[in-house]
């Protein structure tokens, strides 16, 4: 029986499709550029005038125009979305909060990581093994994931997160350390309660009680 060898398929580095389908993806422009840089032969065979003419021949002109118009719209939208996301990433900051549990014991709470596509569970696990403490992922009052690490390791955690962000090419993201003393928290609670009675029963912004 003759051996059938696997066919090598070249995938686009931007949208992960085989390059011939890039035109239907949401990042066509970047795909095209990427392909030109990375695989010139294939680029020529797909985007030469001849090939393009062939591709459009079986559909009526109007239909073709309509489809490409819609696609363009979508692609523009996608690009705008990417841009927005990047902006959001740059604008957001990571907060490392040190919370006093009793006089000598602290936990730190890391929030604001969710926009960076970081696997929280995995990161918690790494923290746990790195600092030899307990670390877990919980939802905070705003229904966002955050990591709680036991023990005062905020400096080390900060360094680690900064390194992590640097690897992703996001140097400008701020990592802020905060301190949350018990006394402060009580004061904040009291203030909230006072505000509540003053405004007449409008629920206060959710408090972090941990």
């Amino acid at each position, binding site marked *: *029986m*003759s*051996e*059938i060898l*696997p*066919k*090598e*398929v070249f995938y686009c580095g931007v*949208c*992960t*499709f*085989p390059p*011939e*389908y890039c035109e*239907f*993806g949401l990042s066509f422009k970047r795909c095209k550029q990427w392909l030109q840089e990375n695989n010139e032969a294939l680029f020529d065979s797909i985007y030469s005038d001849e090939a393009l003419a*062939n*591709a*459009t021949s*079986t*559909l009526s002109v109007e*239909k073709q125009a309509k*489809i490409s118009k*819609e*696609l363009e719209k979508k692609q523009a939208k996608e690009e705008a979305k990417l841009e927005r996301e990047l902006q959001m990433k740059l604008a957001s900051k990571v907060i490392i909060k040190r919370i006093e549990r009793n006089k000598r014991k602290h936990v730190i709470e890391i929030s604001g990581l969710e926009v960076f596509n970081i*696997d929280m569970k995995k990161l918690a696990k790494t923290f746990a093994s790195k600092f030899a403490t307990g670390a877990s992922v919980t939802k905070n009052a705003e229904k966002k994931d955050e990591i709680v690490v036991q023990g005062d390791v905020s400096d080390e955690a900060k360094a680690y997160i900064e390194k992590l962000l640097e690897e992703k090419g996001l140097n400008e993201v701020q990592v802020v350390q905060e301190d949350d003393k018990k006394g402060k928290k009580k004061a904040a609670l009291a203030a909230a309660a006072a505000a509540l009675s003053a405004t007449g029963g409008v629920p206060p912004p959710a408090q972090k009680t941990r």
Partner: protein
Amino acid sequence: MFKKFTKEDVHSRSNIKSSVQRGLKTKFVSQFEKLEPVIDDIIPKKSQAILIKCEDRIQLYSIDEEVVLFQHFDDLIPTLKVVHKYPDCFPRVQVDRGAIKFVLSGANIMCPGLTSAGAKLPEENLPVDTYVTVYAEGKENALAIGKLLMSTDDIKSINKNIGVELVHYLGDGLWNLTE
């Protein structure tokens, strides 16, 4: 099936026994008979397959960190990466160019898209419920995998309604799943 599919749909991962793996291979071959000469390349004898159980009774089998096939109820279905490597081993249908856009957003394929000028159906009849790989006019590689809701003879003669139910396509949750 995988239109909305993320890591959160994964429930558990476990290594499978080699005897189970052997059974899996024979079953896979019995579904796609042309696979016989290459099955040892797709699932090597000594490899360790990992069973990933997901939402909605979907089970993925992955080898070397790459999902090779998945199981929904009793049917074993290859992933597109495997189809791209061994394109001749699976029954194929072809859609016209106008349908590509919709297929890539996960739509089921209607009969006219399979019978028009740019489309191709196999000469011989494929029965209902066959899993087919979907190709496109002017394109070399498969873009989706679907399940026939009508036999191909019916598709040709009736030429209405949904012909292929889409299961897995380029850019869906399974395609984008990285471990």
